[in-house]
């Protein structure tokens, strides 16, 4: 199984530990199935590699030397919800940088900028992130601005809150550590993407700029999250009894917003969550890639007969 999915044999860098932590953080069993982790890792890697290739073509088209965040955000342009999430992501990162690097919080910011105004440069942010600028550029109708509520984020947070409701401290601590996992190399100021780049681009055949890696990091995290979310949906479907009008309220898998309103019925069971199996992840992928309507649907004539490439993250 693992050999089939891991792409070019053995690579020294892998994100298995991080991904297993992330899955735990999203609501999987504390000890996710190892085979599932390998599968998810290979999915994420494959997706990102496809993405980089496509971005590389775009980059060539506009005669750029480096693949920048512009190219990757361009790939995301169709999914407004995810653009909005990226938009918020930049805001959060900027805030955190401001706080952690100079240890100066936002109320004092006015003063600092006041002092530094004459120097025309804000030292708090070394290099400005440009994701939001690009998002605005692609989003001509200002659809991203219209979205006021991030439902995905909300659901994930509700789920996390439900999971932690009845945890003891030891378990909560482990859970918190798991939630801190990301595709970045480490905490602190020098959060680097060295490992991510080694993982995606070991031979350095593509030139990836730092902002591009930041977006890729976001996308990778989002992919894992989407897979786990979808697995919970699949489980919920599997539980559904045909003809029972109340089956949707049974919940138990923290995902259905309808069932979340009836908080009484939600088991905040955490121990009881069985580890996500390989079969479930495959089912999720099948659902993602089964053409239903639209471009890849039944009545769509695929001229070049190429496989549809869709990204799980957007």
């Amino acid at each position, binding site marked *: 199984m693992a050999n089939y999915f891991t792409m070019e044999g053995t690579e020294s860098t892998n994100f298995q530990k991080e991904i297993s932590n*992330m899955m735990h*953080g999203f609501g999987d069993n504390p000890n996710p199935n190892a085979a599932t982790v390998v599968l998810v890792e290979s999915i994420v890697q494959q997706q990102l590699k496809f993405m980089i290739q496509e971005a590389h073509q775009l980059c060539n088209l506009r005669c750029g030397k480096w693949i920048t965040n512009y190219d990757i955000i361009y790939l995301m342009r169709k999914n407004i919800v995810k653009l909005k999430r990226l938009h918020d992501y930049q805001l*959060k*990162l900027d*805030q*955190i940088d401001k*706080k*952690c690097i100079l*240890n*100066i*919080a*936002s*109320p*004092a910011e006015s*003063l*600092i900028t006041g*002092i*530094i105004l*004459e*120097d*025309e*440069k804000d*030292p708090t942010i070394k290099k400005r992130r440009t994701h939001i600028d690009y998002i605005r550029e692609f989003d001509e109708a200002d659809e991203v601005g219209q979205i006021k509520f991030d439902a995905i984020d909300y659901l994930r*947070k*509700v789920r*996390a*809150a439900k*999971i*932690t*409701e009845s*945890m*003891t*401290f030891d378990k*909560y*601590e482990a859970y*918190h550590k798991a*939630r*801190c*996992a*990301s595709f970045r190399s480490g*905490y602190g100021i020098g959060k680097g993407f060295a490992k991510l780049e080694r993982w995606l681009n070991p031979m350095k055949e593509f030139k990836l700029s730092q902002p591009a890696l930041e977006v890729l990091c976001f996308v990778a*995290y989002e992919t894992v999250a989407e897979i786990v979310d979808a697995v919970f949906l699949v489980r919920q479907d599997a539980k559904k009894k045909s003809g029972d009008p109340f089956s949707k309220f049974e919940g138990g898998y923290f995902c259905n917003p309808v069932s979340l309103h009836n908080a009484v019925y939600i088991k905040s069971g955490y121990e009881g969550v069985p580890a996500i199996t390989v079969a479930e992840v495959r089912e999720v992928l099948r659902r993602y890639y089964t053409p239903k309507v639209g471009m890849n649907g039944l009545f769509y004539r695929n001229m070049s007969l190429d496989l549809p490439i869709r990204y799980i993250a957007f």
Partner: protein
Amino acid sequence: MDKLNEQASSESAEKRMTPSVPTTDWSTNVNQEMEISNTNSGNNINMNQTPSQSGSNKSIPATPALLSSQSFVAGEVALTPTHSSFTPQAVNPHSAMTAITPMASGTNQARNSIKVQNCVSTVHLGCELKLLDIYCRTRFSEYNPARFHGVVMKIIDPRATALVFRSGKVLCTGLRNEHDSYIAARKFARIIHKLGYPAKFLDFKIQNFIATADLRFPIRLEALQQAHGQFASYEPELFPGLVYRMVRPRVVLLIFVNGKIVFTGGKTRGEINEALDIIYPILRSYRIS
């Protein structure tokens, strides 16, 4: 006996008031005041029974000036044995006191754990500065215009770092309290003055206190984030703590799972105290049992 106490306390209360740098009281003295009244009444009874004490009582009228300037009696001041006018007494006054152990409430514990880690202040020197000149003529200074448009100066006592800007503004950081910050700012101003600039010392202001506190109980951050969504933001994959933006007082709190809190953005110690008083009951309800 009663008067003696008053005298001693008023004297030491005066001593208290001498420092010029304003410091706010970290604790309210309600409990301890009650304690004083208790001990006083106890002493009075004791005095009636033992007439030998009256001799010591007579010495008091010798200093009437101090008695007239009677002010607020701070509790722990009256109880300290180290005040200057200690008169020998026949009976050990401690034996007459009823011991009241102060309630170690959680809020007080948390309050006592507040520790100012850094204090940022600004001052305006009121004259244009030539940064390169300052950099060349001072020790322990850095100036790299490509990286940062200001001279970074350091002094050893008190250990402080200052950012000096062309406009004459100085930002002084790295101190543990407001008094040291003031002294350091004055020293920086003096150094620049000695270099031949007409430096003044205008509108010194404490801009930011960075303090830490420890609540000693773990907190369920997810639940807190759910309930206080408009103030709190918690993104563990980006930053392990929860960022709580309090509106009044305008302080930002970084709350961590293990119950440690970092306060930033407070302009006074009072604001930080107030913020802790507000947040404590909230966090208390989200503790992990």
